[in-house]
């Protein structure tokens, strides 16, 4: 007797392959799907360089599905991906932000489009290979469902999941969330999945080997790229240090590639999209102890002024901060100053291991 029908999102990587394999072992009826999101023929990717969902990855996902004896489908999501991930990504860079496209991909593709496909295919659950865990607790006969961090602190991906609609949690499975990456690889080896030794995905899948600025220049319209040139100025003096050809080439805290030959180490402090000025200065000016978040979403209630762990980018650990509700959104007051709080990045809140919510950092 099947435990239910599951649609598992397979990227072609080892994590989602093992997720699918574990579900098969657990007695679910499993259907695999890969979203074809981007025409990778135009970017510098090669096999195994660790991007998500390229056509070679589709072949890998299909091979794993075949090996596990489950049906597999490719879902064409190119136009939706362009509209909800690529275009906002380009727009964001051209407005002085440093975006996190993976959140949008989760919001609009994995946990919206695939949820829809899950229902259409008469499935009970949607599973992904995310490093995150679903915790189901029954309190006073009411089921409460939480997202908590993965057993692998290093790989944890809950940072990218704060926009999930709480209503979909009951249909979600994260089959590898209780495992650490080496354990996942070991299972893949034991099961003879050919993706067992495939490299981890790093960076942004659709950018490939080139850099972000190059991707933006190539994929933005000429209209969008017009009037993005500006001056590089020293903070606080206002001294003009040079010129640049587009603000999308910079991110907060950046110390390299400023095109300056100067005796001190200087960093990007602020990008002003109004006149395209890139402000640079000493490292000490990069620190701030508060930030504002707009367009936030919460997976659980939040007490005003609650002390939470707050992450301001994916690759750092959380720091203690009090989170206040304000008219503009949320105000986050850190106990210690933070370096390079970057507009466009996500600010994500945790109560212990529980993902509480998050929002977008705005200037």
């Amino acid at each position, binding site marked *: 007797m099947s435990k239910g029908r599951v649609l598992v999102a397979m990227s072609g990587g080892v994590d989602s392959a093992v997720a699918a394999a574990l579900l098969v072992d657990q007695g679910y009826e499993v259907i695999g799907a890969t979203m074809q999101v981007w025409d990778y023929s135009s970017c510098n990717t090669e096999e195994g360089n660790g991007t998500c969902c390229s056509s070679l990855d589709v072949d890998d996902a299909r091979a794993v599905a075949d090996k596990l004896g489950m049906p597999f489908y490719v879902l064409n999501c190119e136009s939706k991906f362009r509209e909800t991930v690529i275009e906002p990504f380009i727009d964001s860079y051209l407005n002085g932000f440093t975006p996190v496209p993976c959140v949008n991909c989760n919001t609009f593709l994995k946990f919206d489009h695939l949820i829809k*496909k899950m229902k259409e295919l*008469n499935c009970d659950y949607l599973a992904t290979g995310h490093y995150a865990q679903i915790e189901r607790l029954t309190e006073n006969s009411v089921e409460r469902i939480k997202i908590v961090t993965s057993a692998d602190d290093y790989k944890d991906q809950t940072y990218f999941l704060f926009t999930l609609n709480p209503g979909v949690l009951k249909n979600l499975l994260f089959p590898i969330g209780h495992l650490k990456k080496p354990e996942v690889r070991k299972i893949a080896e034991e099961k003879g999945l050919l993706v067992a030794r495939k490299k981890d995905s790093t960076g942004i899948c659709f950018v490939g080997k080139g850099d972000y600025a190059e991707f933006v220049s190539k994929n933005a319209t000429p209209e969008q790229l017009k009037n993005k040139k500006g001056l590089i100025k020293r903070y606080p003096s206002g001294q003009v240090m040079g010129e640049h050809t587009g603000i999308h080439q910079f991110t907060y805290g950046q110390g390299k590639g400023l095109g300056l030959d100067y005796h001190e180490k200087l960093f990007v402090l602020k990008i002003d999209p109004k006149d395209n000025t890139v402000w640079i200065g000493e490292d000490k000016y990069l620190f701030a102890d508060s930030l504002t978040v707009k367009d936030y979403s919460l997976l659980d209630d939040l007490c005003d002024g609650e002390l939470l762990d707050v992450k301001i980018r994916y690759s750092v650990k959380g720091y203690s901060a009090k989170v206040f509700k304000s008219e503009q959104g949320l105000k986050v007051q850190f106990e210690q100053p933070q370096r390079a709080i970057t507009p466009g990045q996500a600010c994500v809140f945790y109560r212990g291991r529980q993902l509480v919510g998050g929002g977008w950092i705005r200037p």
Partner: protein
Amino acid sequence: MQMPEKTKDFENPTKVYLDHNATTPVAEEILSGLPIIARIWGNPSSIHWAGRGPKSILREARSSVAEILGGVSSQEIIFTSGGSESNSCVIRGIFDLQVQAKSGEKLFARNEYITSNVEHPSILKSFQWIEKRGAIVHYLPVNIKGEIDLAQYQSLLSEKTALVSIMMANNETGTIFPTQKLAKLAHEVGAYFHCDGVQALGKISLNLTKIEVDFASFSAHKIGAMKGVGVLYAKRGSPVEPLVIGGGQERQRRGGTENTLGIWALGVMAKRLSAPGFSVAEYFPKVQELRNYFETRVLAEVSEVKVTGSETPRLPNTSSLVLTKVDGEVLLMSLDLMGFAVSTGAACSSGSPEPSPVLISMGLTRAQAQNSLRVSLGRETNKEQIDRFIEALKLTIVRLRNLDSELNPSPEVTATGASHV
């Protein structure tokens, strides 16, 4: 030998295959004959004893194919690797000969080509290939019924036309084109006429001596033989420039050691098409009746459904449906999960279907094309299978439509709080 895991779906009697325009089941007599014929492993071009058996296999198959195409000459039959190769060979070959005729000059003697925009990709992409190299290609539109405007066709024909290529029957809707008339008009201006007959063979009666095309393409696996073998019919005197260059096989028109096993299978199936009980004359009304039964029931039992191309002469086995508010891709997957194999259009090699360009060319909206389903019956299809399919189809359509109104509530319903349905 142990049977590999992959055969299990094909042995499962509960699975129903309704995608015969994509490919057909290999006939029992082929399956039983294959291990024997595979023992005749010699190279047909060899002079010694090992070449004789294989050579006679080719001879017999060629003669059976020539016979079934209307009693054409064996010399007019060229074996290729499939319909796509035959199609590419004609288009690129004629273009190449035109270029050679006027080599050194950019203006070729005849440099205009005419095709329809509902052709198979092997035709359309071959034309794009020669277009990039200087050819002028006219793509004829078809109307919602799947018809070509003959007046428009005539206005495009001129003494500059080198080649016309228009299919005999469309793979997605099954609509049949007036090949004889189209070929005659092309010949009046001195152009060659090629016809992609891949979907027509075995389904409608075919007589190449009567319809007088210069070239025609066919595929073995659409008539119960095996993949990897095709036919290029080239009427005596029609120039063939080989696409595959090799050791002079097929009278210098297609290089490469022949696929004797596949060609044998094609020959057997071609011969069977003229045998009592298997002829097109007997098959056509039988499958048409079953197809019409399917369509009549679907039209009566499912709301908001249309059949594309039903007013036009059609292949007797093909049904192209537009089901409002039902995504064809999801419908296909849902039916697959229930054991039914159907299609949303042409089988796409990437497995990632865009809405069918053929249906869009016919004037269907993008939404209608996305809501399309192609059902193509075959010789082994029976009424019991069709009945089971209709029940599964109805169930799935109701489920998907309910889900659609749940996920996309119509504005009137939310605005007034009451349903008008």
